[in-house]
């Protein structure tokens, strides 16, 4: 598993040239998306509690609760995807890439991002047509018959932000490939297993143990 090391974009990194600025701007949108996603998770907890008590104590379950949850799920299934990509939080096998150094490493990372750009572009377009289909020909949830398209729309939106992030990362890796001596900016720094474990431990132990603030 790959996890974030301490190189989040900061106000300081934002001053490191165009890449730093770009990284930071996208990061702000990513943080907003992720906070929104967090709020939905918090809301899911609250609505679950209300549903249980409503049903048990007052015999008054929230009508369409399951449908509502299904519709809301795209927020926490997708909105934070770009944020997590920036932090190097999506799972991958580090066995080989963790051993690479210098130009070879940045070339491999760059190639990886190009593949991702292609896939995500397709997912945006066909996720969008999926939404349009649901809007034009009608698609609804099972019980409460809420329209499905707003939920489907979240997917291409989240993927669009991810695509922009991947573009910034491609730029970041290309910059490092050109000159491996530069400080990595705008890309997650992913180390070997031991370094990731350190990051993972820091996460579990809370913010106080995390290196490098925001």
């Amino acid at each position, binding site marked *: *598993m790959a996890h974030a090391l301490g190189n989040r974009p900061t106000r300081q990194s934002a001053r490191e040239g165009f890449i730093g600025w770009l990284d930071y701007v996208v990061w702000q949108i990513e943080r907003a998306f*992720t*906070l929104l*996603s*967090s709020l939905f*998770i*918090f809301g*899911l*907890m609250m609505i*679950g*509690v209300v*549903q*249980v008590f409503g049903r048990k104590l007052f015999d008054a379950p929230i009508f369409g609760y*399951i449908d509502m*949850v*299904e*519709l809301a*799920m*795209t927020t*926490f*299934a*997708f909105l*934070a*995807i770009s*944020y*997590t990509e920036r932090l190097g939080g*999506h*799972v*991958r*096998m*580090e*066995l*080989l*890439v*963790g051993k690479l150094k210098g130009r070879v490493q940045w070339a*491999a990372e760059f190639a*990886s991002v190009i*593949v*991702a750009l292609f*896939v995500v572009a*397709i*997912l945006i*377009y*066909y*996720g*969008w*047509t*999926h939404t349009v289909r649901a809007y034009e020909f009608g698609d609804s949830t099972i019980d409460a018959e809420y329209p499905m398209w707003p*939920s*489907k729309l979240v*997917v291409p939106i989240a993927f669009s932000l991810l695509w922009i992030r991947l573009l910034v990362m491609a730029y970041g890796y290309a910059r490092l490939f050109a000159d491996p001596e530069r400080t990595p900016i705008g890309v997650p720094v992913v180390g070997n*297993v*031991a370094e990731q*474990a350190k990051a*993972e*431990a820091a996460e*579990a*132990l*809370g*913010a106080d143990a995390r290196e490098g603030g925001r």
Partner: protein
Amino acid sequence: MELSNETLGILGFVGLLVLVVIGVRIYIAAAIVGLIGLIGMIGWDAGAGIVGTIPHSKSASYTLSVLPMFILIGYLAFHAGITDAVFDAARKWFGWMPGGLAVASVFATAGFAAVSGASTATAAVFSRVAIPEMLKSGYHPKLAAGVVAAGGTLATLIPPSAILVIYAIIVEESVGQLLLAGFIPGIVSALVYAGIIVVWSIIDPTIGRPIRGYTWGERVKSVPGTFPVLAVIVIIFSAVYYGWATPTEAGALGAFVVFVLALAKGMRWDNLKDALLETAKLTVMIFTLIWGVLIFVRFLGFTGVPAEFTEWITSLDYPPVVIMIFILLGYAILGMFMDAIGMMLLTLPVVYPAVIALGYDPIWFGIVVVKMAEVCLVTPPIGLNCFVVNAVRPDIPLTQVFRGVGPFVVADFITVGLFLAFPWIITWLPQQVLG
């Protein structure tokens, strides 16, 4: 050249393997192979179109909504001070045994497992809580480190557990049954760990001495601190057992209880925000892995490979138990290199129907696979739990951590053997409740 569907499927697997090994993120690797495969089979518009429907259609399903709740419980539990309380009680109750503090660590991690679904997180927090105590009492560092790394793995068997939910969803079994099924095997695993420690400490008393001197009064007083854990266990267990709430609702209630406790313990807005952000991050990571891999699995579905594999396995002229052992060995090897969720998502669509055709119980297989995946968290070369312990305690060298978990890996194989020999350890409880 016209390729047969089976050839296409196998090529797909090879392509995926190559991409994963060279470090492409698994969701991207799986999606691109699935995409190219589908486009090759049914054309651009149909292939890419189908791929475009998968992220939404695989994510927006109510059953999966339990995941963020389970994850949130774990992140809040740390702020609710549950770790210290659980370890304190375990030490007072079990310290007198040979290797007592290590035994206490096992039961404390098992208790914490009831509020945490992540093995690495559990290992991390107990590295900080339990290891210093053990070292202070003169325990050998390899035992101290080993028990924490191994104990961490209990988090995925004992509910709440994200991995069990994902297994249930891939194979379309009741989430409730899987969660119930994890209880007893989790406890059995803990008991076998404890047994190994006791035996090890009797053979070599220098590695960890009993801690005596606690009065019954002290013991009793340590119990209330563990009530939050009991509350979460009771909520989740009774919800699935008595059916008064869906797993998501039970998870929400459990998270809420821990949330209130954390507030009472003085959790601040910053802590809450961090817990929520980390939950959002881990949640999106899991969902992304799910739909990404399922794009590949959709392609496999079009090739018909899963059905072919089932046919092949059932035509083999070996006793099912031999085939099962080979399958489990396969998982042990795969688990050395892959993350548990990714491994299950990738293999189950092919392996699961074959296992069922062999006559094995779906719930039983789920628990055994998860147990195997967890063993891999403490074995070289990338036993992540060991690295986590080493990261929190850099003073304990990695080689010593790996040496320390050795006996626990043996314990795990004993446990899996028990599951094979006595399947009812797993199936009894869910059958009791849900028929």
